[in-house]
């Protein structure tokens, strides 16, 4: 029963949502909306679970003084202080001069932007150390990379107007063709997986084997 009940719920709700798409009757629409609301609530609860799990794992690692434990204290302090400040300010946490917004502007915003901007340094380093042109395919990739890197910035047009035109051609013809193929393949895969889930053939979402 532990396996059958989740499969049954998935089957019934999956088939209902599929059929409700085509049925505009108010009763069906109302149930359809209700199920979507449930799903939003369930997704909301996963955030609570995520925070609880993060706290559980990191508190345990700090108490055992496992590797990098001082950093985990910073993580725990960060999450607890931010939550406490946010909850203490109620609906005013979105005000421009609130303490929650100060934490957002002073810590969260620059730190996340810094993490993303580090990519520029690592891409340059990887370009030097790892991008080896050893085959025709690698040569084609390198040529495409040069055209796109220069064609996507004003410098490319300043060097020669053909560079941005070539970059546009690469993006709109070969890239687009490949992307369409990938998208169609992925969509078919999603449909196949959806049908397998609804029919109970795919059970990995419940922790079981397919």
């Amino acid at each position, binding site marked *: 029963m532990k396996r059958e009940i989740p499969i049954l719920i998935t089957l019934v709700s999956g088939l209902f949502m599929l059929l409700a798409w085509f049925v505009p009757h108010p009763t069906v*629409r109302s149930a359809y*909306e209700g199920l*979507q*609301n449930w*799903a*939003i609530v369930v*997704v*909301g609860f996963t*955030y609570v679970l995520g925070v609880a799990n993060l706290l559980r794992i990191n508190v345990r690692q700090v108490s055992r003084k496992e590797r990098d434990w001082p950093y985990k204290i910073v993580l725990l302090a960060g999450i607890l202080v931010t939550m406490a400040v946010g909850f203490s300010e109620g*609906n005013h946490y*979105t*005000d*421009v001069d609130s303490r929650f*917004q100060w934490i*957002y*502007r002073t810590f*969260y*915003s*620059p730190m*996340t*932007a810094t*993490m*993303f*901007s580090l990519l*520029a*340094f690592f*891409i*340059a*380093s990887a*370009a*030097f*150390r*790892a*991008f*080896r*042109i050893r085959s025709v395919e690698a040569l084609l990739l*390198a040529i495409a*990379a*040069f055209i796109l*890197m*220069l064609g*996507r*910035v*004003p*410098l490319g*047009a*300043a060097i020669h107007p053909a560079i*941005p035109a070539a970059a*546009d051609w690469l*993006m*709109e013809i070969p*890239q*687009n063709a490949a*992307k*369409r193929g990938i*998208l169609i393949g992925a969509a078919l895969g999603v449909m196949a997986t959806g049908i397998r889930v609804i029919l109970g053939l795919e059970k990995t979402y419940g922790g079981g084997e397919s």
Partner: protein
Amino acid sequence: MSFLAGLRYMDRRWIFLGVGLLVLLPLLFSFHIAPVQPSNRARGFYDAIEKVPEGSVVLLPGDYDPGTAAENYPMHLAAARQLMRRNMKIIALALYPAGPPLTDQVLRIAGAEYHKTEGVDYVNLGYKVGNELVMSQMGQSIPKTFPVDNRGIPVNKIPVMKGIQNFQQIRLIVNVSAGYPGTKEWVQQVVSRYHVPMVAGVTAVSAPEYYPYLQAGQLHGLLGGMAGAAEYEILVGAPGLATRGMDAQSLAHLFIAFMIILGNLAFLAGSKKGNGR
């Protein structure tokens, strides 16, 4: 060992220093390597907004967070400016938890420039958990999906939300997106189902993913990364952060291309030396 072969053992901190200086110097000492030329994709974005009648209701989902603000924020601000210049009623929201403060900032700056009032001319509905489900729910009822705005005010008391039920009242979706959930999901869940016209501003790394939608006409315009944002700023007539950043990006791209060539030359020189032994 030749100079080129020796480069293989170069401390990578020299590369970091090179990137850092090439990005920093153009930002500190503003100079213009080359003018920004708007592409057809940016023109499509701009024209789509121009074609919407003045005073129409436009949805402005800002689906990004500070991680990609360097690319997304300038296009978001420029879009808010164009929308407000055309007296559009803006309904903004975010499907990224850390998105609403950025949306607030954009609306506040553009609102002050064009003398717009929060609640009357625009509203920030804030963040809602649920990704595609939120989009789908909005198709049934926007007030039920977002019963209160970002400040906790019930939407039935907000003048700009008067008469707004679902996507039937929305004339255009202007999406600023960093990934999932974002442009792809808006196209799949809303554009294809409710046939609402849409334009999108996305990060450079994700832009190739949306070319099929652009070519199919499901997107009327597309801004890719900081370059797209700079092109759009020029069209809006308000050169800003992205336009200033283009010199830095130009030099960084040139440096990376140079690093690929240099890395391969060093590799070749090292290989020849090894074979000769």
